[in-house]
């Protein structure tokens, strides 16, 4: 199955009339199969909204999104989602979490077991299979969440600030691990972040988004070979350029938040 993502004139307005929040305005983009794409922008610029629309959680107000030539209508296991809050089922052990999608799909027991064994090995979770999520560190939990998706071998992975809550070292380890996984089976990845450095470290291509309404401000290709050195001159040149763009939007964000009427 091809895994190209095509977004055509996507519009999303939350609410209606004067109170409506224009989260996405006329976004058009194509993510070729196997590309590692980062969505970058300040808080509230619509990154999650666009990702949720791709996942099939949020219906668009106008426009279309298709994955592998099929229009997105509802969530499905062909677009594995990794959430910032991990979203593991706390009542299931690590292995049951990973097996869940296979159970739903009706994969035979022996085959499911083999898949779980392979994936837990791959992500260094073999010793944690019978633990419950509450006993794991944040980094381990996010590994399980990734393993849960990988078990279904989806052509597309959608990740919403998956490493946002982790400490710097764990974050780097998981970034490297994700790159390794991606290099092995070249899934199409859409990865949301508001860290400029994370975007440059990971992505083939970065879409910088504007704040309200969410639009694509700049489409940047990262030409560096991997592994990338965040201390290199080239890395820092891109970082400066993107930093400038993001700061402009951040300023608009701060402005809007300061002058917005208080709501609670």
């Amino acid at each position, binding site marked *: 199955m091809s895994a190209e993502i095509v977004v055509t004139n996507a519009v999303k307005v939350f609410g209606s009339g004067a109170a409506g929040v224009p989260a996405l305005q006329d976004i058009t983009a194509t993510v070729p199969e196997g590309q590692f794409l980062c969505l970058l922008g300040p808080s509230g610029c619509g990154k999650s909204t666009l990702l949720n629309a791709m*996942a099939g*959680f949020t219906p668009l107000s106008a426009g279309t999104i298709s994955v592998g030539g099929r229009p997105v209508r*509802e*969530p*499905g*296991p062909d*677009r*594995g*989602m990794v*959430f910032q*809050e991990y*979203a*593991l*089922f*706390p*009542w*299931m052990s690590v292995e049951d979490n990973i097996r*869940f*999608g296979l*159970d*739903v*799909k009706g994969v035979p027991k022996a085959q499911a077991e083999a898949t779980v064994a392979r994936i837990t090995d791959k992500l260094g979770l073999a010793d944690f299979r019978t633990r*419950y*999520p*509450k006993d794991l560190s944040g980094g381990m939990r996010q590994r399980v969440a990734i393993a*849960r998706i990988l078990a*279904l071998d989806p052509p597309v992975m959608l990740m919403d600030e998956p490493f946002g809550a982790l400490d710097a070292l764990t974050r780097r380890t998981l970034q490297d691990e994700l790159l390794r996984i991606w290099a092995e089976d070249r899934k199409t990845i859409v990865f949301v972040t508001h860290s400029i450095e994370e975007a440059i470290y990971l992505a083939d291509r970065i879409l910088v988004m504007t704040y309200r309404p969410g639009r694509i401000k700049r489409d940047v290709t990262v030409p560096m070979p991997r592994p990338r050195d965040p201390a290199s001159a080239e890395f820092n040149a891109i970082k400066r350029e993107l930093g400038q763009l993001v700061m402009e939007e951040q300023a608009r964000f701060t402005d809007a938040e300061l002058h917005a009427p208080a709501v609670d």
Partner: protein
Amino acid sequence: MTLSSFRGVLVPLGLLLLWEVLSRTGAVSPVVLPPPSAVAVKWWAGLQPALPYDPGQESYLSWLFSGEMPHDAVSSLGRVLAGFALGAGLAVPIGLMLGTSDGLYSLFNPLLQVLRPIPPIAYIPLAIVWFGLGNPPALFLIALGTFFPVLVNTIAGVRQVDSIYIRAARNLGAGRWTMFRRVILPAASPFVLAGMRIGIGTAFIVVIVAEMIAVSDGLGYRILEAREYMWSDKIIGGMLTIGILGLIIDGAMSRLNDHLLRWHRGLER
């Protein structure tokens, strides 16, 4: 024994001693307050099997429980468990339905809010009118006492399920039935179990009252019967047994909770 645990028994021991002295010296009539030693003797006697053990007649276990008090305790416990099973068995599925469907919830919630504050004891006259005397009204009242706490908690439990779990499950391809059985039900289970713990506590209160009114065995019946003869020592002994049984039920429920919710973050120690 450490100093602090010694201090903990100091007050009860002192009171027992005072109580013993008061009734032994005749300062208080033994009908009003029999000496604790008499209560203990009576309690111990109630525990004993009525006849000597005869292996040809019955098993050792049933002989051991053939004394009046064990027999009553087993009757009361049986009623609590049967009424609880009935009440919770109805409340959980109904609660799951009302919790998942906004339509059903808005239809039934007002009725629920009207019925819920009526204490189960207030249903006694109606229960007797409907079911006469005997076990049926007792079971009805116990089931009722269990039903509302379990129902209310189940509804609340389902309604507070974090939408992130639902989204994750949908993303992994879960259909309605899987969602219900493997996501909503376990996610709501801490609430459901908390409701069951309250429910079985209520059931235990109701069983004592129901036995005083509708049946002729059980711990509640026995202490009311003892009152007819002014056997204060037997009354207090019976109360003691009721307390012990309540402790056992709550302890068992709490162990079950800990086991079923071993995954729950709130139980981290």
